[in-house]
């Protein structure tokens, strides 16, 4: 069984991404000759988190924020993907819905979340409901488009078989379209993760007032650039890691079901 390869490949990609990021990071600071007061390098961040006198306090602050952000990301991600999946399926069952609802999803994408935030806060308050709403707003459009096209990608011949045997649209959806959309679903999952993270950070900044999203603003206003960089680095690492995890799961599912392997 090629499980080792299924895990190994994303891991290799992850290492490659890390090398690229660190190189660009150092390179930028060097090329633009950024003042060390603002521009912290990887070594400064490692010092800040592990070796300075107050390193344990720094870790408490940054990772305290971080786990809140992870929870918020999970809330937004789940809500967004769930809504996108349900809406995509409804589109297949009631075709006229798509023309009616797609513009709404598009609004989510084209109006900046910052502009919508005050309304979201008034409607959903300042806790997890607002986080879920903002996560959904960020995630829904790309996820929806991807899942819809996945559902449509079912081979016409298979769809015709269902029709010929008198199957309803919901049978068609269940037996043919859903399995066929699996690769697209994973693509949607992958594009949704960075989106959900952005949504969570924005929700924290504009609504809940905790987590990394708020921590970053706090760090800037306190001139705490070490904390700022550390927070950004941790979030970046986390999004890379999550992205890789989806890659692993995707490969394992592909191997198990055989769907999407050819692509």
């Amino acid at each position: 069984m090629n499980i080792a390869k299924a895990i190994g490949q994303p891991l290799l990609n992850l290492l490659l991404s890390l090398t690229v990021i660190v190189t660009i990071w150092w390179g930028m600071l060097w090329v633009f000759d950024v003042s060390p007061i603002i521009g912290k390098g990887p070594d400064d961040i490692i010092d800040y988190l592990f070796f300075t006198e107050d390193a344990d306090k720094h870790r408490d602050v940054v990772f305290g924020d971080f786990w809140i952000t992870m929870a918020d990301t999970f809330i937004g991600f789940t809500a967004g993907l769930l809504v996108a999946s349900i809406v995509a399926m409804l589109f297949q069952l009631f075709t006229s819905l798509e023309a009616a609802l797609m513009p709404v999803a598009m609004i989510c994408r084209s109006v900046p979340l910052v502009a919508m935030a005050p309304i979201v806060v008034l409607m959903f308050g300042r806790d997890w409901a607002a986080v879920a709403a903002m996560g959904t707003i960020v995630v829904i459009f790309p996820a929806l488009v991807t899942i819809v096209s996945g559902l449509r990608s079912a081979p016409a011949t298979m769809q015709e078989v269902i029709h010929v045997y008198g199957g309803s649209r919901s049978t068609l959806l269940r037996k043919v379209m859903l399995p066929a959309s699996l690769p697209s679903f994973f693509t949607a999952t992958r594009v949704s993760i960075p989106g959900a993270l952005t949504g969570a950070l924005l929700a924290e900044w504009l609504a809940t007032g905790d987590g990394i999203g708020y921590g970053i603003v706090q760090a800037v206003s306190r001139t705490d650039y070490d904390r700022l960089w550390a927070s950004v680095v941790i979030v970046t690492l986390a999004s890379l890691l999550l992205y890789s995890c989806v890659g692993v799961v995707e490969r394992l599912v592909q191997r198990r079901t055989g769907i999407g392997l050819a692509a």
Partner: protein
Amino acid sequence: MSTTTHTTGSKKLAAAVAVAALAVTACGNEASADDADGDFGDLEVPLSWIKTAEFAGNYFAEDNGYYEEAGFESVNLISGGPSATPSATQLATGTGLAALSNPVDTGSFIEAEGDDVDIKIIGSVFQTNAFSIFSLADNPASEPDDLTEMTVGVAPNNEGVFYAFLDANDLDPDDVEVVTAGGDASGLITGEYDAYIGYATNQAISVELDGHDLEHMMLHENGLPFAAGSIITTQETIDSDRETLKAFLEATIRGWHDALEDDDEAARITVEDHGADQGLDMEHQVVTAERQAELIADEWTAEHGLLTMSDEAITDSIESVRLVGYDVPDDLFDLSLVEEVYEENPDLMEHP
């Protein structure tokens, strides 16, 4: 030859890609010149906020040619704001001869980076800060204890000051409900919170002009009497460009004399010229100018001149900043430059 071209080309390309990718701009200009004959070169001053009437004195000093008379060739007041790099950071990274800030922001910089850059406050435009915790008059917070039954909107950058206020008034942070607010007090009107911490000379005015009566609880009367509108610079600049700094202070004082004389004109040049791209409201800026005048000129300045500070004001400011949580040194303030300016220009004292 072709190799050289190639190398330069690829480095340029790398730089261009880098710019496109991160949209970073790097600039570092030294404002000061080393000419000894009164030619101080270009003047750059990072401001602590967007260009509102808060900096009217600087606008007048620019418009009426005081900076030019003092020996500067050109003037560039660099707008700050909620998303701008803090003025103290700009100063420390080489932008500006001096900058406008406040003791709390300056304190936060010193706490974080004070080992590398020695920042000093060489004058205060505001004898006392304009921070207010304000609430609607029909549900007023008249004294600190009232807040225990209220929800308070606090913007991230005011957190430090707010918790120091609670501390100074023996209030337990757990007893006060805090929500994250943005840079304006609109949540007060929508009912999202009952009180907001902001400037009596800024956010409060928007709410009042909207037709709501406000109850103000000024922070300087409630345990945090620090001076604001701090003019900051580095010790290095004080040592190397003392005369340049004094020329800047003198011109700024003259500018403030003009600004205090005519609130309407101060608001007009702010709205129509200096802050034209901010879409500021004329009525609002007139009230700002009127209201800040009494914080800028008081009994002390009538006798000792604008921008100066009493020893008591210095001690109060340092104690307040320490209460906020930043351990600033005892010699944070250096008022000797502005004092020399008044000694050398006795006419500066004759102002309305």
